[in-house]
């Protein structure tokens, strides 16, 4: 393919290093402080989107303070990584009419955050909105075994470090 002849304008702009100077001007322009894009992360916490999928949490009923989880095991089934374990038991209880009924209750619930890929399938299938992936995103932990979150931890949430400087 024949290259097109270059025009006098191109020759002159090359001679005067215009191609380089134009680039230099762009980078020079960006030095103005208003172009700064950095977030000062630990000092200024970013606002995370409402739909963000972060640390898991087992929600409590705001009125009674009991766990919303009905031990249906759907989250464990929906999880592609099989990292949720739901241990359930059948308990007998007497309802307000005096009849004896059987009810599935949650005995234990663990969640392995080290294997979680935060796909959100568990919160999608949960019929009672018990398991939820929250906006918490600081999940780093010093010991590997602590990645497996217990029931208690899932309800309380992870303790957030506060950075001063």
């Amino acid at each position, binding site marked *: 393919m024949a290259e097109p002849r270059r025009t006098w304008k191109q020759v002159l702009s090359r001679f005067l290093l215009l191609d380089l100077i134009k680039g230099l001007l762009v980078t020079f322009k960006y030095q103005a402080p208003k172009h700064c894009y950095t977030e000062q992360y630990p000092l200024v916490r970013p606002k995370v989107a409402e739909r963000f999928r972060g640390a898991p949490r087992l929600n409590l009923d705001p009125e009674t303070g009991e766990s919303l989880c009905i031990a249906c*095991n759907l989250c*464990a*089934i929906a999880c592609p990584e*099989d990292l949720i*374990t739901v241990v359930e038991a059948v308990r007998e209880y007497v309802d307000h009419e005096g009849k004896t009924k059987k009810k599935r209750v949650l005995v234990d619930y663990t969640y392995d955050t080290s294997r979680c890929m935060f796909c959100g399938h568990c919160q999608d299938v949960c019929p009672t909105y018990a398991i939820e992936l929250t906006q918490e995103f600081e999940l780093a932990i*010093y*010991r*590997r*075994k602590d990645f497996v979150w217990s029931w208690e931890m899932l309800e309380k949430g992870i303790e957030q470090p506060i950075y001063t400087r």
Partner: protein
Amino acid sequence: MEEKKDKPTPKGASATKAPPTLPIVELTGDPILNRLRARFPTAVLEAVTVLGMPTLTIAREQIVDVCRFLRDDEEAQFDFLTDLTARHIPEAEKPFQVIYHLYSFPRNVRWRLKVNLAEGEACPSVVSVWSAANWMEREAYDLVGVRFEGHPDLRRLLLPEDWEGHPLRKDYPLEFRYNRWCEKHLNMIAFREGTEYSGRFE
């Protein structure tokens, strides 16, 4: 895998009633197929259309000739090998299948070719027809264990050269399988039952 009991098993209870099948239509009257059949009378074992994609089963010995014909024929013009892969079907009589997806830029048509292979049979390599087949055949050899005859450089592509087994075979387990490569290269230490993994380099 114990927790998985609630999930539908791969070949479990639902296998008793036959699942529905995609409509498979016999491919007839295609001009290129007719030319192919005229040129290689014994090559095309089966010609069907699945979801609009012509699927041809080709005799093993003639796959390279068929491919070259399809590439060079002025009506077929399959100048592009989109994909080449292999499949393991343990229950079939010929347990290995190599699948080619061809594409023709001028005609904007895709075709699928299949070659069935018996255990231990090698598939003729189509690298001489399309260079694109080079790595795809290496990958098929690596993961499914189909050997390709006439491949210029048939080494494993993804796994280490001295790995044992071919992972995409159905008899290859999903769980970790101890093999010599791991012993040699990963410096593995057997943990006793109940060892705590602290995650610290202590």
